[in-house]
């Protein structure tokens, strides 16, 4: 159990998470004017993409030779860990939002779950390196085309949606369930 947790780099992931959450909370409602996004995008919505990268790096320990010869069903353990990480991130963002009075924190927590799920899906399907790039690519891509010319967020652009948008929550929930599924069922690729 200890070796398993250590191989998943949980302390390092926790440190990165706290740093990102602090940065998102401190950013308040500050926004970044991306040239393609037609309107400004809240920085707190974009920062959680780093958590997707960090989670991908942390969970890449499951691609080790040790895991491949393990007698226990490591996929289920990893799926459980992934669920715990997602729940913790969402809860920590909500708490940080309450503490800092950041109105975007709930949306940032939703995005953290979404980006982690995207990273897990990409890493199990296409490998760990792509898993790291996927959250950033999703952030840039949706930032580029996720808004209509009149500034309205498109229904599928979950990272840009307001915290009250039920469709964005539904998309993130679907992504999270899919990520948990692939983590449990699809064996990890060899880590670089």
């Amino acid at each position, binding site marked *: 159990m200890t070796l398993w947790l250590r191989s998943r780099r949980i302390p390092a992931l926790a440190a990165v998470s706290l740093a990102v959450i602090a940065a998102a909370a401190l950013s308040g409602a500050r926004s970044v004017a991306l040239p393609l996004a037609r309107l400004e995008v809240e920085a707190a919505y974009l920062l959680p*993409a780093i958590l997707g990268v960090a989670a991908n790096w942390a969970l890449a320990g499951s691609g080790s030779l040790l895991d491949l010869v393990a007698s226990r069903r490591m996929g289920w353990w990893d799926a459980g860990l992934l669920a715990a990480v997602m729940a913790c991130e969402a809860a920590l963002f909500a708490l940080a939002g309450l503490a800092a009075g950041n109105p975007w924190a709930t949306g940032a927590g939703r995005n953290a779950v979404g980006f982690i799920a995207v990273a897990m899906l990409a890493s199990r399907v296409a490998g760990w390196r792509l898993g790291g790039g996927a959250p950033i690519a999703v952030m840039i891509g949706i930032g580029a085309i996720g808004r209509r010319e009149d500034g309205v967020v498109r229904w599928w652009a979950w990272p840009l949606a307001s915290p009250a948008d039920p469709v964005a929550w539904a998309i993130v929930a679907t992504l999270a369930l899919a990520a948990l599924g692939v983590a449990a069922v699809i064996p990890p690729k060899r*880590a670089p």
Partner: protein
Amino acid sequence: MRPGWRWAWSSSGVWIAPVAVAVAIWYAGQSLAYTADPWIVAHSAAGFAPLMLTIPLAAAGAAWEGSRWRHAGWTAIPWSRDGLASAVPLLAPVTAAGVLASLAGMAAEMRTGTGTFLPDVRFLAPAVLLPVAWTVAAFALGTSLNGLWAVPAALGGAYAALVLPITVTNPVWLRHLTATRMNGACCETSADVDWRALAAPSLVALGLLAASWLRLNHHGAIPAALMVGAAVAGGALLAHGLGRGAQVPRDPSALVCAGAAPVVCVWPEHANLAASASGIAAGMTGKWAAAGLPVPDRFTERLAPASPASHSFALSRRSSDPGIRQAFAMAMLPPVPPPCAASPSRDAVWRGADAYPLLLAWLMRTGGSSAAEIAGMLGGEGGGGRVLAAAEQAASRPAAEQRVWFARNLTALSRCDVPAAFDSAP
């Protein structure tokens, strides 16, 4: 599988190339250029815009390749060859993908805007240098970092470095260090690109390239960082004086002239309008002269302060006859607002602002435009009907009264304390 094929298919550049080219062509189709005219310089400048998406993609691939190199242990062993030369087999496909996407985006923009694929040759060097520098830098990053971090860091870092400077409004010249927003800075049809807007991003790219070479040859991070810092400082020195725009007056020898009294000179992009504009100008100036207005001998699209002999005007390729008449009428008026109204103190209120549409309507009416044409120009809002009625009334007065009324309103365009005169009665 032959070694050559194995080499090609194992590179991330092979699958990045079609994605990056598709993204570049898509983005180039977003009507990015400064002008809709087929001005080759404006569309060449707009061809840089897709780089903000294609360079990060290529950089991610290069970081991937660098991490493969690192993973294979090549960074840990001594070698006698130059580091960059050793990296070429891994780096070449992904660098080629970045350059290909850059040129494809530029060609697509040129095709959309000018009908040809070839950009202005001055833009080609930075269009190649920028993706080369970023991919080499990302490769160097990949040799230093775990691939799980290097790929997203190259993707996000290149995007942030290319995009964030263009969102900064103070200092606004910072955007010229990336070249990705050159479409917002260059160029009107009457202007050419300022060489500093091309030199500044090229210098930054060269610094990035030199820093990467240092890193790939086992030099420390500090010399590499100093190299990048020096290049950015040099680029900043070049870009410092540019402001938001990056254009200089265009060579007037390109003007195409037609007519004799007055001579009408247009840029080659408007050559299709030269004959009709010359005829319209002759008709309008004849009527204005009959009304007692001094008229110039020449109307030119060259941007220059008006003189009694020559006035500047501006057309677009799609200008219709009413648009051409409006352009000549505007050329007869001084630039607005007057300096007193442009003062940052905000204390000065320009009381004569209505004089501009008033005189414009009078010039067009006197020059032969119909009332409906002028009403269409003025629009229904903002007292357009009142302006047209006042201009119609003035045009029906004796010539001497019209001249007095015109002179009074002309004064209102150059001072803040003189109100517009709607009433043309003496």
